[in-house]
């Protein structure tokens, strides 16, 4: 977190104000750094690690206690058994220790040499466990009346095991393999191509359609509010609901769209809209346009309503035709908001994960970079490779953001 550093020569009031400001911002800054900045740094670290999904399971020592033999009366003897294992078959454990309280009335006759017993406190120091280590420790004991009365279960007091393991996540092994494999794979470049297609056309489409919708609603008539509300539906409905609706609607076998097109004579046989190669990408882009045009429409409409109508009247007087008015008056006035929207929407479309994931799951040539992160990390279980893709995304976004702040900021005060 940054520290409050008021400029020199400022009065105490100003200092107090700055301090208050940073104090009020502190919760946001702290939480943002924990949830955003820290993970971003972590992703760079992980991308250089040869780490698989399975490596996330931290190896730990485990123990199972039981009593072998029957105790029926005081003085009977039985065996107190500890079954020790290393939960991981790959990673060794070091400095394994055990701590437990043995049941009341149990007299251990033969203590394992690695253990010490102090009254009822059992402490053992086992040292190192190899990967996949297993051992049984049997300690004969005799029981007295208290034990017989209570008939205790040795697991009632939970044995605490501790041990150190080196996690691949934190040790010093680094590799460039993740990046090598990514850049060498032919798939990666097609993923980049798909992402750019999706982002550029999705953004442009949403903007143009949004502009058209804004032009339509930029006049007052009865039911304008209702139409505006209706046009915002796609944007505010949960993505899972609309994505699922689209998938059902365009299903190749039981979808209404196919049935309708065939019935109307447009198609001879059903198209697999979301399942085959060129059209799946087009369909997810169309979905993106459909879902996000309301956002562009809302922003453009807000800007349109602040344009002075006197200008149009003047232009009308001067004989400008409607299209000329649009082209020479509206477009320059809207250029600012449109460019900001373009950059913003481009970045957001570029980041979009859930839409494509829900529609196609990244199959049929619709795998974008964000879906690729998921695929690599969780479907192929190669977290390192996923992180490498994430790093690529992040760097590309950094470039976009710089462009955004360079060109976006002067325009609309963003």
């Amino acid at each position, binding site marked *: 977190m940054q520290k409050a550093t008021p400029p020199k020569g400022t009065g105490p009031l100003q200092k107090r104000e700055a301090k208050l400001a940073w104090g009020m911002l502190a919760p946001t800054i702290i939480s943002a750094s924990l949830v955003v900045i820290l993970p971003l740094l972590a992703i760079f670290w992980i991308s250089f690690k040869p780490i698989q999904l399975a490596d996330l399971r931290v190896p730990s020592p485990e123990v199972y206690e039981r009593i072998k033999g029957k105790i029926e009366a005081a003085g009977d003897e039985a065996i107190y058994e500890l079954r020790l294992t290393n939960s991981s078959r790959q990673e060794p454990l070091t400095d394994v220790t055990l701590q437990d309280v043995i049941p009341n009335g149990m007299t251990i006759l033969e203590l394992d040499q690695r253990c010490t017993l102090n009254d009822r406190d059992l402490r053992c120091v086992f040292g190192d466990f190899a990967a996949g280590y297993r051992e049984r420790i049997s300690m004969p004991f005799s029981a007295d009346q208290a034990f017989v009365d209570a008939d205790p279960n040795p697991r009632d007091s939970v044995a605490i095991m501790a041990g150190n393991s080196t996690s691949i996540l934190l040790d010093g092994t680094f590799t460039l393999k993740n990046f090598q494999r990514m850049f060498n794979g032919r798939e990666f470049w097609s993923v980049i191509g798909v992402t750019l297609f999706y982002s550029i056309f999705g953004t442009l489409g949403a903007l143009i359609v949004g502009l058209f919708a804004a032009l*339509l609603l930029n006049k007052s008539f009865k039911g304008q509010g209702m139409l505006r509300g209706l046009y915002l539906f796609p944007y505010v409905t*949960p993505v899972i609901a609309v994505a699922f609706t*689209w998938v059902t609607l365009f299903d190749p076998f039981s979808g209404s769209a196919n049935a309708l097109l065939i019935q109307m004579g447009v198609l001879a046989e059903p198209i697999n809209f979301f399942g085959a190669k060129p059209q799946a990408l087009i369909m997810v882009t169309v979905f993106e346009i*459909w879902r996000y045009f309301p956002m562009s429409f809302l922003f453009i409409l807000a800007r349109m309503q602040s344009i002075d109508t006197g200008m149009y009247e003047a232009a009308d007087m001067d004989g400008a035709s409607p299209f000329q008015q649009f082209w020479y008056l509206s477009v320059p006035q809207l250029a600012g908001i449109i460019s900001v929207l373009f950059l913003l929407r481009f970045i957001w479309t570029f*980041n979009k994960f859930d839409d494509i994931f829900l529609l196609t799951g990244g199959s049929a040539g619709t795998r974008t970079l964000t879906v690729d992160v998921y695929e690599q990390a969780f479907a192929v279980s190669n977290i390192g490779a996923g992180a490498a893709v994430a790093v690529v995304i992040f760097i590309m976004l950094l470039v976009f953001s710089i462009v955004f702040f360079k060109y976006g900021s002067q325009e609309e005060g963003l």
Partner: protein
Amino acid sequence: MKMLRIGYVTATILGIFWSAVVAICVAISLALLTGAAVTPGLLAVMPAGLIIGILLLITPKTIPARTYILAALFAMLLFAFRLSQPFGITLGEATIMQIFALAAISFGTVGPLKIMLSELPAGTLNRHEFEGSIIKFLTGFGYVFFTVVVAIPFFVMIMTSFKSQQALLLNPLDYSLDLDKGWGLFRSYVELFRDFGFGKYLLTSFFVSVMTVLLTLLFSVPGAYAVARLRFKGQAAMSRSILLIYMVPMIVLALPIYIAFSSVGLRNSIFGILLIYPVTTIPVALYMLQGYFRGLPAEVEEAGLMDGLSRLQVIWKITLPLTRGVAMLNSSEIPRQHLMAGSVIATIPIMLIFLGLEKFMTKGLTAGSVKG
């Protein structure tokens, strides 16, 4: 271009295109509402539209009930051209619906076309007249297009939830309601709550949403106020970089967070979600609130300061009461039941919140970002 700017040509073209647009819409609606094998029959509709377009241009506007006469004519032409099957199905099938559809297609073609062509002379057009009619056509087309494109998925979503799987597989176009079933229509909803424990998911969603909103507000209100009102070094940089958080893709963050959560056992826990969700919504809330705070007159606050309130008291007693409402915007966390009924239920609360706050949202968005 010059060729097009003749009244007859424009009227012809608009007549053809508009009648086609209307015919397609009516055919789709009829097909979805009845499940019958309706076809739009563009080859018959377009010539009829052409004739109506020219008639609208040459008949004097003073004829009484001109629209009705032309609409009737259009319907008759349709009958004639399509061999007395105006929608490609026999008249016996879904007769009432067909009558409605015929009225819709006739008036839907003639009425708007009349407006589009109202200021056109028959001969050469000037630019104004020509573009005016084109714009009217595009406007009409736009309303129809957007409404259809937005409404159909929602229509399908709602109607599917009232149908059975077999009925839809049998005829994917039949979305007509079987009213005989009475309350049986709501079977999917009942099953959803009874057999799939949907109520529990809904409660979880509700809880997560409410908590997220509360946490977001708790964090973003003071932050937004600081950025909007207080003067300090780095104010401009802060107000800009807030949105940067929103530009980081969730999937990039998800990976390290997943790893961290797995190792501390927070995975699959509501508490874990509540650690993450607010942070993703804070930037937007902060950004919007900041715009809103800026819009409030500073004088009121200064008066409060003069009267001896501290800054925090000013915020609590003056600014916040003025801000009530903007804050309720973000609440769209979703249950994961892959069923249409579930989708409908998931959509309803958001729609209700949204429709209630729509005016406010547009205003909030405008205030927050776009200042002319």
